[in-house]
């Protein structure tokens, strides 16, 4: 079997029933997809397989033989971030960062399919992705901003809409 991961094609040694998650994390040492639950319930293992979002923990190697896989490492690099990565940075959509890779891959798929900045549509698209840290608000902000094609000043982070600072109050 072979697999192209972030543009590099490799012959696999793993068995056909090895999960794509284990192929990526253990054999190919591509550790951005996370083993958050290995039940298909959290989305932290999400990668793009031939452009489609897939839960790597529920996908076996044999089913993706010959496919092209994109992970967060392949979306962009520190000097050349993809729009969704820049959006997540500027909008502070990642706190602990553990759900971030899977969340961004799902967001990327949403954007690739023509997703707009409609917040309800984004919430629905990401409904199967669990984040425990952020409360999702800034994740939705980030995806909406990326959908709009905003440009991002990475030296600063964006406020949440409607946040009010009343200063000192007696």
């Amino acid at each position, binding site marked *: 079997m072979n697999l192209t991961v972030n543009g590099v094609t490799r012959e696999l040694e793993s068995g056909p029933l090895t999960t794509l998650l284990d192929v990526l994390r253990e054999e190919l040492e591509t550790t951005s997809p996370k083993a958050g*639950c290995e039940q298909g319930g959290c989305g932290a293992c999400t990668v793009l397989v031939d452009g489609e979002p897939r839960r790597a923990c529920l996908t076996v190697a044999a089913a993706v033989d010959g496919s092209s896989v994109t992970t967060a490492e392949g979306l962009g690099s520190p000097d050349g971030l993809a729009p969704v990565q820049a959006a997540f940075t500027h909008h502070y959509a990642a706190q602990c960062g553990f759900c971030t890779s899977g969340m961004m891959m799902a967001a990327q798929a949403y954007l690739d399919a023509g997703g707009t900045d409609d917040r309800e549509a984004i919430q629905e698209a990401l*409904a199967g992705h669990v984040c425990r840290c952020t*409360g999702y608000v800034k994740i*939705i902000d980030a995806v909406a901003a990326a959908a709009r094609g905003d440009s991002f000043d990475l030296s600063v*982070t964006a*406020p949440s809409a409607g946040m009010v600072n009343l200063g*000192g109050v007696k």
Partner: protein
Amino acid sequence: MAVHKGRGVAAIEYPTGMNQNGDPSQAWIKVKPDGRIDVFAGTSDIGNGSKTIQSQIVAETIGVPYDWITYDNSNTDSSPVCTGTFASRATFVAGKAVEKAAANVRSKILEIAGKELEIDPSDLDIVDGEVVAKGAPQKKISVPDVAGAATWGYGELITGVGAQLKPYATIVDPETGRVDLPPHSAISYAACAAEVEVDDETGVVTVTRLWQCYDVGLAINPTLVEGQIEGGAMQGLGLGVLENCYPYYPSVEHRGSQFGAYLAPSTEDMPQIDTIIIENPSADGPYGAKGIGEMANNAQPPAIAAAVHDAIGVWVTELPITPEKVLRALEAKEAGAAGPRREGKKVVFDEELSVNTVSSGGMRFEVPA
């Protein structure tokens, strides 16, 4: 068969630092020959952003750009003690240790700069990585040049240490709970209002809006503060209406072992979140900051419970407020059995839950009068 709207309010307080104190944090800082700053602290970043906050504190205290800071909390060989990232202490207590270490570094830089410029250090300031004479900005030397002078001129390592420890408060009288010292580093405050919609046919409680007000003392990084408030809101919502390790508590049966069986909040559960912060600076925190990490999920459950009562006239005091509990409460209300028992001046709710009812005498809650 209708959807009813309701609102409820809650006001809370929460201590910063471990209860009774005695929880040290320490930091040490060294300056590289080109003026870049290496910070060693033992605070784990669990997502709260302590690496960021502590780096900001160092940058501000010394007077150098944020991107000159390298922050290393990675191991116990190089990092000194930090009791831990809990008790909302990462900014207030650990951040204070880092601030102290940075202040010591600043003094050292000024001392050497003073020698180089032949100006008394107390007449110098550090702004944006440059040491400048107060009132005479043409007299200056860059921090990199100071660091170079230290390394190759004076044979010195510019370093600073800081430690923060509030002494342990002993309970001097266990019968009353009296202590000999304040048992907290500080106390933080918040208030929350919840708006819910309750469907009286399905029992589902939808939290539609949360207004949250926090006194953060001083927001060292307002974006990170928002992150705590929003993240806490969803955890509070989960505690209030969704999550339970033991769905039939106290029974241990039917525990959820997967997402979907255990209901962690998802994007579909998001209410509109309106965040209000106020800033009444703390006396002791770094730059007047106050802790926020934990109390961010404390105010929502009671605000939601009060909102549910406002909506449908029943009190559910066992969390989470599930559809089953709402429907049972509505049934009891229909049957005229939901109200409190009144006896003299006593208004007694929830008797069926009390130890007086459930235990066979081993524990009682007796109320005077």
